[in-house]
């Protein structure tokens, strides 16, 4: 089980800020494939990975990052702070 968080327009497209996901995915990319297979709203949210960023356990990382031991994965658009 892993907590999956969504922020900004990713959250709006998927329609929820957070969910617990039962998964055996070894990498972020595999988790994304599982989510896309669920429903259209996931497929749409993850249709353009170039416009997405991912954090595993609150550290920015890449889509090929491993999920072994991870408790929290977050998906969001590029940041616009400051």
């Amino acid at each position, binding site marked *: 089980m892993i907590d999956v968080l969504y922020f*900004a327009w990713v959250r709006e497209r998927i329609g929820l800020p957070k969910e617990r996901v039962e998964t055996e995915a070894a990498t972020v990319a595999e988790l994304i494939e599982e989510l896309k297979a669920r429903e259209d709203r996931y497929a749409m949210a993850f249709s353009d990975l170039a416009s997405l960023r991912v*954090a595993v356990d609150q550290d920015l990382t890449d889509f090929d990052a491993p999920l072994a031991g991870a408790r929290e994965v*977050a998906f*969001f658009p*590029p*940041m*616009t*702070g*400051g």
Partner: protein
Amino acid sequence: MGVRVQQEAFDAGAELNAFSSDVDGAGAVVTFNGVVRNDGGDMAGMEIEHYPGMTERALGQIRDEAMSRWSLEGALVIHRYGPLKPGDTIMMVATAARHRADAFAAAEFLMDYLKSRAPFWKKEARATGEEWVSSKQEDEDALDRWS
């Protein structure tokens, strides 16, 4: 001194004075204040979303990196989230150093990194509707000068 993430407004002038009196030995204090602009004249307001937990962690790492890269007496980052109106102060960075070059460079570094590497997202409310602010390539490019 450090990192603060908060919804409440803060008094930039009071923060500057408190920061300055904390940094003994500094000859140079630089601040940056980010303010909500009323671009186009039709901006009703802005909502800033963030990632609680990761935000503090990311800002802390960026601040630590600045402290290790330059000879600083102190560095402060304050960033708000939640609803904001045109003219409101969004965030503030303050750096203190013996010499001005360090204080300026560290403040610019903090700004460049928190723009693109701290988990904040801005949504603008305009007469034409609400819209998430797009990230700018120039902000991403700005990071190159520090690598």
